């Protein structure tokens, strides 16, 4: 897929968010990508919650969410959407999910996957791992929902939303207080 069409899809997606939110679209402030692309220590490219997909498919992927209260939510979305996209589009009742809108600046879209599903997914970038470090109740099969893109292989997966949204940047263990 070309950079141009990836960009178009990215902007379309953003526009969709903005119209949904009925908020004026301030292009520059919303899409500024961090200038600090990792170069020095061979980090991976930063993904910003965009899932590369040539065309929006009519094929839907069913996903089961287990919400924090234990309740199961059944939903489906087009391939290529991220789990965060799915939550937003379907207006799922998951408290405080996706505060930074998929820009790897928080850990509120933290989800726990089955081991098999986790193994299927691609490598995790440094930037995602940095934010996962701050997630409450981190497990070995945790991912950020904004970075998990739906494909046919993920049909019927179960996604658990962990118990509490709590960015760890106040625990002594993680060190940081602010």
């Amino acid at each position: 897929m070309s950079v141009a069409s990836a960009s178009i899809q990215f902007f379309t997606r953003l526009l969709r968010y903005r119209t949904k939110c009925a908020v004026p679209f301030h292009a520059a402030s919303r899409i500024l990508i961090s200038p600090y692309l990792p170069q020095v220590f061979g980090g991976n490219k930063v993904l910003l919650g965009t899932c590369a997909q040539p065309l929006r498919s009519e094929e839907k992927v069913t996903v089961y969410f287990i919400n924090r209260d234990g309740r199961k939510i059944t939903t489906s979305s087009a391939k290529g959407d991220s789990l965060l996209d799915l939550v937003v589009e379907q207006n799922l009742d998951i408290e405080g999910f996706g505060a930074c809108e998929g820009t790897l600046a928080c850990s509120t879209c933290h989800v726990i996957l089955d081991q098999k599903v986790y193994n299927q997914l691609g490598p995790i970038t440094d930037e995602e791992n940095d934010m996962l470090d701050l997630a409450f109740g981190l497990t070995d099969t945790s991912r950020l929902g904004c970075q998990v893109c739906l494909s046919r292989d993920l049909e019927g997966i179960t996604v658990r939303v962990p118990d509490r949204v709590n960015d760890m940047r106040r625990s002594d263990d993680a060190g940081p207080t602010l």
Partner: protein
Amino acid sequence: RSKTCWRYGGTHWYAGLGNANPQGPDWCHTFAPANICLVHTGMFLSVNVQVDIYERLPVPFGLVRFGVAPDHPEVKNVINTFTQTAQHARCSFHGNVRVGKDVTVEELQEAYHAVVLSYGAEGNRTMGVPGEDLAGVYSAKDFVGWYNGLPRNSELRPDLSCETAVILGQGNVALDVARILLSPVDILKKTDITQHALDALAESSVRRVLIVGRRGPLQVACTIKELREMVNLPGTRPEMEASEFEGIAETLKSLARPRKRLTELLLKAAIETPGEEELERRNRAERAWGFRFLRKPLEVLPSTDLIRAAGIRLAVNRLEGDGEGVRAVATGEVEDVECGLVISSIGYKSLLIDPAVPFDARKAIIPNTMGRVQQTAGLYCSGWVKRGPTGVIATTMNDSFDTARTLLQDIGKGTLDVSTVKPGSQGVSTLLEKRGVKPVSFSDWEKIDSEETRRGEIKGKPREKMLDVGEMLQVARA
């Protein structure tokens, strides 16, 4: 409909509300930095509740606008959520109202069923050392306020003509300050950093920034994202003392994941021999930064004319104990570092806003139990003023959810009486009018917002923030 009031000052505030009774009360609360999700989550929508927000400045969002670094625009995305909430039919914003001065907390309590204080922490901890008042010494709170356009810091005019800057504290705020001091201007000029800060930084002679902490590498308080940004900062190289990292590598395997990854990155930057490409990049870099550990400020040393800072005297520490109980203990040794800029980033502090509100001066918070202010029915608190000034937006968001639940519980149990009719914002408006105070509504703020965005567009920035409250009011009323 009854009315309750939530009052914020400047802290983040999200609140998810549960289903309250149909005869629900009205609440008002003041807008603080990143708050207001209580309406947003949709729980509020099912409840017959009115929420009014009172904020000291004409502009909302608090620390999301004034604290988050200009080069972290994605962190500010949460403003969209707040805007949605504020635009809700049963939510209204009243800016330019100083609670404690224009209207007292007691008066608010008379007008509303519940008042929620979440005015954050607008003070800062001081070093408490001689020389702290010299020119060239600033709190990180003021320095950040200066480059982020907080009106009260617009005249700061920090002197950036020295070569070395010393920052006390090693949290994310300290790293933000270091990064802004050393970032290439080409990057900063595309952000919403204030113009006067941009101009000053373009002329800056600062080439070396030391980030100094009392304890060791394992106690550093910043997060890995901010450290990685320093490591990758164009045009800069890390410069640290290998001796300060003795024994650290051996501890790695026993550390929890977040601390482990952070320490690994720190070691890599501090002592690992770089590859060829990285070595070349470092040799070309004109600016340097580094952590210094086990150092505590004793005195800011004056210049010969005794007016400005020319250096800082640091006590050398050693660590005692281990794990959570690690303490810094003075060794008796002392070290002087030459510098012309000293920025203390050792913590924010909440202030007393109204004598009628209980306040714990030692902890600098409002004494409370799960958000219920002690000994005062109908008064609640949330965010930093409730728990202390630590944590990020999401942390405070969670805290706000908790306070909201407490409030709803109290209504449900009848502990909070919402049966009487209260005047709400009508009552407060009458008082404000008598006192010559004209609140700014959310749509007034949107006029300010449009104007700032328009001014920014001309310069290729997301916005150019207004620095003067008078100007904000003018645009709001236009």
